């Protein structure tokens, strides 16, 4: 998710990752690869019949009263640069009426 001011400057950027996370149980280092993964230590994947709800609070820099917010939901395949964009929502959010 990103928020950019009217001049295009990025004022906020964050990510959430939804997936299983495993180690080989010998260290706390997360690993990929069926031949080394032993146990999930965390599971943030999207679950059946459940809703993942997030709240992002963005305190704007001084002088910025409006931002363009973009939320992109992506399915990454093997590596971050290789993804399918499932949904993309863009909104202009202003503090002024």
């Amino acid at each position: 998710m990103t928020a950019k001011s009217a001049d295009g400057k990025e004022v906020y950027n964050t990510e959430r990752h939804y997936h299983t996370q495993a180690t080989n149980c010998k260290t706390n280092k997360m690993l990929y690869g069926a031949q080394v993964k032993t146990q999930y230590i965390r599971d943030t994947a999207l679950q059946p019949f459940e809703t993942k709800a997030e709240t992002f609070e963005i305190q704007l820099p001084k002088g910025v009263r409006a931002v363009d917010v973009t939320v992109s939901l992506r399915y990454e395949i093997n590596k971050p640069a290789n993804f399918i964009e499932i949904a993309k929502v863009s909104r202009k959010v202003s503090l002024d009426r």
Partner: protein
Amino acid sequence: MRLLKLFLVVCFIILPVSAFAEKAKTIEELASMYDSSRCKECHAEIYAQWEKSHHARSLMGVQDGLMMTPLAMKGRTPFSPEDPGKATLDTFPCFKCHLPQALVSADNAFAVDYAKALLAQDKKRVGMLSITCIVCHNTKAIIHRLEEGQPAKNVLYGKRDVASHDDEFFTKVKKSGIFDHAIMCGQCHGLGPNLEFENPVQCATLYGSYEHNYISKGGTQQCQECHMQKVDGFADHLIAPNWNDHEGTKKILQDTIAMDVQTVGYDWLKASKDWKPMVVVNTKITQNAGHRIPDG
């Protein structure tokens, strides 16, 4: 003599090698044993669907990588041999699901040939091996083996009995009780860590997710109801998604996962007379699959 040779060649092409007592020693031999290409003579549409499926390239990872290569590389995994010439079937625990026919119809010489093909990145040869029609409709068709016995060599299994099946070798089709149940897929699509090996292996855990986090919440559908929906009256053997089909997979993901975004901008009164310009973005993501997304 020439006639005898011709007869032997014809037999080798026509008969699946499960008919032979000999174990496969090469990629070509195992591929030939489980070759299902003749199925398309009568089941052209289903075969065409299967050809585009991941079952048709079970040793090629998403987007056609040879995902088992580290297993053949010295020191890369706990299973890796000193050199490919010392590979055995135990070198490749992934065969349990990615090539189950190797465990019943191949020997260690096959593992050596396969290890060498991986190191050579020989996609053409490795790509000859797959989860063919015979694997699901025979090798993996019976799970109650103490009660029902091993799959019969001349029988294919499906959702209904067919008294006479027009094939030189598989002359009958018998009903298997599991073909419309999730357990059929669950044999390979994973409960959790596979602890029967000398080192644990954990690949797909979809079936575990289905059992413990879908059924437990009141879900009632079987894998086949979503992944093998009927096309022209027959179950779709693409068994989507096909991850190599970007647009097709995108559509499935969009049909399955929904995101709602709400925004508000205001001046937050943090303390007396101390307003902070604030934007709040609320997101809600839901999905309607029978398992976690993503898995594994």
